[in-house]
């Protein structure tokens, strides 16, 4: 499977908020000629000791694509929502419409930034940096199959309490 079909995905598990994904994302995407100084594709929202990683999910009927005035954000043939940052004018319509809050406003530059999947790399740095294996990259069907298998093994062998139960 080519890298172009593989998507960064959030798998089951509990995020401990280590922030390594953000570090890796910043390192990989800062000053990479996208016309944006600072790019953060992932955001970590905190509440008490719990964390919610927020990342673009490449929605099928993507509200951000519908809302995009300039047409800079479009879905490509591979089911990925991609942005042409040279054409983003920072109208914030996408931010107003993303149900996941996955788009960030870069102040001063009038650009609304989200995860673009790091297609120029073999493996997304955020997923490589995630020690808990929450962030992964691959074909969605494969990832789902692997997860089903893990769940079945857990169920049949009774091994490893389901961390999701808590």
């Amino acid at each position, binding site marked *: 499977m080519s890298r172009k079909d593989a998507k960064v995905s959030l798998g*089951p598990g509990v995020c401990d908020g280590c922030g390594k994904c953000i570090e890796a994302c910043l390192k990989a995407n800062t000053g990479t000629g996208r016309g944006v100084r600072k790019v953060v594709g992932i955001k970590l929202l905190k509440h008490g000791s719990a964390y919610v990683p927020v990342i673009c*999910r490449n929605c099928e009927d993507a509200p951000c694509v519908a809302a995009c005035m300039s047409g800079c954000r479009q879905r490509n043939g591979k089911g990925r929502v991609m942005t042409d940052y040279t054409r983003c004018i920072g109208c*914030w*319509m996408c*931010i*107003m419409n993303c149900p996941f809050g996955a788009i960030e406003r870069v102040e001063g530059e009038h650009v609304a930034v989200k995860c673009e999947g790091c297609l120029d790399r073999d493996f997304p740095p955020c997923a490589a940096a995630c020690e808990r294996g929450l962030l992964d990259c691959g074909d969605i069907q494969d990832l789902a199959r692997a997860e089903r298998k893990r769940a079945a093994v857990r169920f049949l062998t009774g091994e490893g309490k389901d961390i999701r139960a808590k």
Partner: protein
Amino acid sequence: MRYVIVGNSYAGVGAVEAIREIDREGDITMISDEPYLAYARPLISYALGGRIPSRNMYYRNEGFYRKNRVRLFLGKRTMAIRSRARQVLLEDDQVLEYDRLLISTGGEPFIPPLKGLDARNIFSFTKWDDAKRIKRTARDKRKVVVYGGGLIGLKAAEGLNDLGLEVTMVARRRILAAALDEVSGGMLEKRLRDNGITLRTGRTVKEVRCDGRGDVCEVVLDNERRPRCEILILAVGTRPRTELAKNTPIRTNKGILVDRRMMTSVKDIYAAGDVAEAHNVLNNGDSVIAIVPLAYEQGRVAGHNMAGGHRLYSGGMGMNAVTVYGLPIVTIGSANQMDDTREVRTFRKGNIYRKLVFEGNRLVGAVLVSAIDYAGILTRFIRSRADIAGIKRELTEHVLRKGEFGPVLLKIGGALIPCSSGVYEHGIDGRVPPEKGNGGKALWNIKANV
């Protein structure tokens, strides 16, 4: 299958993309009376002010038409629809036959009945050509009056101010009165004044006067003040461009009436975008809501149905995001109409302002100024009419007071916490865990490829 789409903007483009997801073979024809490929209409003020190069005005490039094999008629008016013969008639008597027709003709400026409108240098401001004409005219001019305090007037004023003209805005009520409450409206007006725009709010124009050469020279306000101007922009409103529905059985009210499939009262004729009067989730009726996201969405729904799929429009609502001289403002849903059944919570600190409007266990409106991140999460709550009883405390304590969305996201659980295995299989189904929320009723249903 032969598809004919009248109009080449957001709704039309959405329809083409949707049709091609289902039907790779059919013939698609698009007709526009403007000479351009689809361009970003709301950005004409940027073109006017010179903020973006004209190549960035295009919403879709030639590749879009080529890839989707769209036969494009530009600069050609559509004169009539013969619904029984399934034909549309173009201005040069050319006849196009269709199996499915989409009317996405958008809106047109409403021109108020004022005395003196035959003077020169009076413009409306809804098309790229308007912006170009105004820019040419403005070269040797200094003063301009913009009549209308809506989004179009605001944008025109901003663009002309960018060009260095002295701009006076005349508005019947406040600026953006329909969308913004008094606090956020006041913040906006201050921003405009600070940047050199003169405001005459609560005023109407009675008459337009011209000089001896026939050029506009001043407007007369209802308080007899007479701001001078060399250019007058009329931006008092738009209305759906429904003329094609005339002399056909297509039912209209303010706009063309459509059902949830975006089909008009005539089978196989659809309407979408600013011309359509479609389902409004907030009043459970039909409304013309002329904004980009809904136009594109309606176009997509229409396109899928035209190509033989079955999809229903989930319904829209008013919302807008504007940035005025660096001050971002987002207003969602019904944030301004007050009555006793509504509970309003506000928070203000310096330039930051937030307002949430509740109606029982529903969120029906929101305004965010300055700190607008994550606004889309509120949009979903409002648009889906979700029962938010389970997260109301988080909304008022964390979102309203601190702008923190973490607690809300954590509580709506499965939707966004990565520990839901449902994420893989069904996309995000947005359920509130029964013990925490509203009995597991879906908050939203976005099909997502995680």
